[in-house]
């Protein structure tokens, strides 16, 4: 075990997987010499050379389509897309390419990972602050993970690289400096598709991913002050969902709040809510509550940005409302 930052845990995962498997290679903008704008790939070009760690031109659309076919033909590419806000540029590669070939051609696999980071709170404005989880979680055949702790970041990235299917790996710009204990066992993986209960409770279940798990934990503290016992479930994987964990928790609490930093209409929280309705309706005592960004761009100025981002107070309010 060692204390390290989220960014360092990711770096360690990449290093270990590149040492283990020479078909793993990295490409993306500013990831080589500079080590990535969030320093996730720091030192890897020096260690593995310019062929396996490539700085690319600003060409997201081509890069993503190349990741698909490079993975189809014997390598395990890990592509970094600097901001989740640029995901719309790579959607064709995901939706019209990566998503269809396993079904059509059957004997192909596409073991690539696309890492990106999203989210607000850094004053980066309307084109650098979005969470577009639902855009990628919408696509059949593609897995989506969004860890919040350094240990899960490392373990899930290793699983993603070894997975035979495309995996979108969602990071958050406000998590990179978060420090926690991380195992140095190179064979310790965190399985894709498994949620984690980060706080047990009996009155209401709060489901979240990425940075929203931290806000949900704070909300649970606020609720505890009112004598409300909230359970917080870190889904960790957005697709495929850990249905067992979701339904088991609701069977205990009978109330559900779903939290997502993205937009509300057709958003990831809407999907979670519908899924809960499909599989846990009989155990619900109240409608599922959604806490999301309002349906609008993320504004720049601090008071504006802080007003739109989901936070502990809003999550606690939503939980109280379901219990009314």
């Amino acid at each position, binding site marked *: 075990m060692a204390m390290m930052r989220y960014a360092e845990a990711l770096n360690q995962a990449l290093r270990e997987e590149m040492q283990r498997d020479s078909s793993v290679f990295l490409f993306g903008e500013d990831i080589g010499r500079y080590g990535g704008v969030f320093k996730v790939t720091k030192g890897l070009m020096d260690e593995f050379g310019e062929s396996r760690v490539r700085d690319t031109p600003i060409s997201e*659309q081509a890069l993503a389509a190349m990741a698909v076919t490079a993975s189809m033909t014997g390598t395990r590419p890990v592509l970094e897309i600097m901001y989740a806000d640029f995901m719309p*540029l790579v959607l064709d590669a995901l939706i019209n390419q990566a998503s269809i070939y396993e079904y059509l051609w059957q004997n192909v696999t596409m073991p690539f990972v696309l890492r990106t980071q999203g989210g607000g709170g850094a004053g980066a404005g309307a084109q650098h602050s979005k969470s577009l989880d639902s855009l990628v979680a919408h696509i059949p055949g593609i897995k989506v993970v969004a860890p919040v702790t350094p240990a899960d970041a490392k373990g899930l990235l290793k699983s993603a690289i070894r997975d035979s299917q495309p995996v979108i790996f969602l990071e958050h710009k406000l998590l990179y400096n978060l420090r926690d204990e991380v195992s140095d066992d190179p064979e310790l993986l965190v399985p894709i598709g498994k949620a984690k209960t980060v706080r047990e409770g009996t009155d209401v279940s709060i489901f979240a991913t990425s940075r929203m798990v931290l806000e949900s934990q704070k909300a649970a503290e606020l609720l505890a002050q009112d004598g409300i016992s909230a359970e917080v479930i870190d889904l960790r994987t957005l697709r495929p969902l850990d249905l067992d964990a979701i339904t088991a928790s609701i069977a205990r609490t009978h109330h559900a709040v779903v939290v997502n930093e993205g937009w509300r209409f057709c958003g990831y929280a809407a999907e979670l809510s519908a899924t809960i309705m499909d599989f846990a309706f009989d155990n619900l005592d109240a409608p599922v509550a959604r806490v999301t960004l309002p*349906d609008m761009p993320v504004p720049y100025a601090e008071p504006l940005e802080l007003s739109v981002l989901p936070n502990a107070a809003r999550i606690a309010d939503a939980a109280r409302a379901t219990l009314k």
Partner: protein
Amino acid sequence: MKNSPSLDEQLEMHRKMVIVRRLEERLGELHKAGRTRGPIHRCDGQEAVGIGATAVLGTSDFVTSTHRGHAHYIGKGVDIRGVTAEILGRATGTCGGRAGHMLIGDRDNGMIGGNAIVGGSIPAATGMALSIQVRGTADVAMCFFGDGAAQTGICHESMNMAGLWKLPVVFILEHNQFGLTVHHTVQSPVADLSIRAAGYAMPAEIVDGNDTVAMYRAVATAVERARRGEGPTLIEAKTYRMQGFSTSDMGGYQSDADLAEWNRRDPIQVSRRGLADAVSAERLDQIEAGAVAEVDAAVEEALAAPLPTFELFTRSSPYATAPEAV
């Protein structure tokens, strides 16, 4: 010489460059003091590109910009006080604090606008040129984009249509040698990106991007050509970014020798030397002092201005498209 700026125009370009430089320096200080928010992309050393190119335009012409747009904003006539307040996230900013420094738009002045999706400014200006052609006016659209943006696929798509349809657009490639931290030699196998213009049947010119007068002349020719309906031009302005990529740049990839070499070619000094025969040093000092005072006043005013307050949109707003407006 044909298309040369008048002395007054030259002095105005000089003044605007000093405004932009002072703004960048003040933003650098404010950043260090923890009084700015988010990354800020300064254009120190590149001022002549934006100021020289926009000096040729009128209010009804359009400009599209990038994440590094301060010289473009000021050049196109956006009020320095509004720009400063916007960068500092104030209610009095050009966009009420909603946009921040990368995304400033000012429809009345034809600056629409900053764009932080790299490459986004290129089809944006091309679309405006299409509108101009359809409406049959003599306006032009001017597109600023970087050497990094030149590697996007959308750059090719846009330039192909601009050439094909002879759209009234002037592409200003602001070649500052880097895309973010990556040197141009790691992004393109060719040093002079303007050779691509041949593939779009458009003329191209390489210009000293640190010389406002050279910029003005080349762009004036391109703008006249566009106004005559003869189509687009690509201007490749060679310049250099003297500060980090943004205020969050951790550095370590720009060589001291390059910085020293380009410092000798500082556009404000180049401009001063160019004006030396026609204008006294005292007059230039006076103009510069006035520009500095204007920026300092804008900064003080912005810092004293109120922060915006959030109002959730109402049912009539364009964002109220969901059943429940929250």
